[in-house]
């Protein structure tokens, strides 16, 4: 059984790779390269898999999942400038691809402290920057 829960946060970012020149950045990222950044209402879908527990009829304790996602993702990202305020994006372009991988990394690093071995597994994270695009990262692809 898989369960997917959606969460939201709003944040600003700027796409700019210091390895490229000004013209290249502009050509590659377009408006997303505007110097002062811009923001999105992000939606993230966290998918968890595992057996349905007899006692609760559930695959995951939602209060524990919500608490983990809130602490590791929503609180550090919501109403922040991702480039300036999230350590991982000081040296890494905060594209949705990289954001998805960072969310998976944060959840995986703290998963065992919340869910016991044999309990629910993190399967994947999908990030929608706007309603017109979505990026899905499998949890098995990230260390």
């Amino acid at each position, binding site marked *: 059984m*898989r369960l997917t829960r*959606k969460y939201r946060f709003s944040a600003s970012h700027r796409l700019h790779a210091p390895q490229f020149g000004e013209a290249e950045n502009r050509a590659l990222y377009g408006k997303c390269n505007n110097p002062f950044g811009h923001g999105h209402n992000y939606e993230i879908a966290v998918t968890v898999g595992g*057996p349905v527990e007899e006692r609760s009829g559930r695959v995951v304790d939602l209060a524990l999942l919500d608490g983990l996602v809130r602490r590791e993702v929503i609180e550090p990202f919501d109403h922040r400038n991702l480039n300036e305020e999230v350590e991982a994006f000081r040296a890494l372009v905060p594209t949705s691809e990289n954001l998805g991988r960072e969310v998976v990394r944060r959840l995986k690093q703290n998963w065992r402290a919340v869910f016991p071995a044999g309990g629910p597994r993190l399967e994947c994270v999908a990030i929608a920057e706007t309603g017109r695009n979505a990026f899905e990262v499998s949890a098995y692809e990230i260390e």
Partner: protein
Amino acid sequence: MGVMLVTRRAEFSASHVCRNPELSEKENRELFGAAANPHGHGHNYVLEVTVEGTPDPVSGMVADLRSLKETLNRRVIEIYDHRFLNREVPPFDRTIPTPENIAIDIWRRLASHLEGPRARLHNVRLYETPDLYVDYFGDGA
């Protein structure tokens, strides 16, 4: 021609309460939160049923969508819609109607009726709210 997935969506509105009678009031609260409120509450459930198969070379179809719609209506929607699941829809008199258990029950109600020469049930996706859904693939996992 390769395997293709075809998904049909349907909706039903129902009430439920999530409690395990073997647990204390406090344990039920911790486990289910507001969903344990004893008189129940309701949702607009959205059901997405996905069938997998190889399109028929003549009709170009994996499954007859009209018959799929009728099967969903007869086997699930007419039974679930505008009901209090714990009181009116077995097995929820003895099984907690979490979205996980509802998806398993819907799978059991549908699987044998969607088994055809070219197609079979692939998964049942059930949205309890727009922000929470489960997928059941019928493998017991």
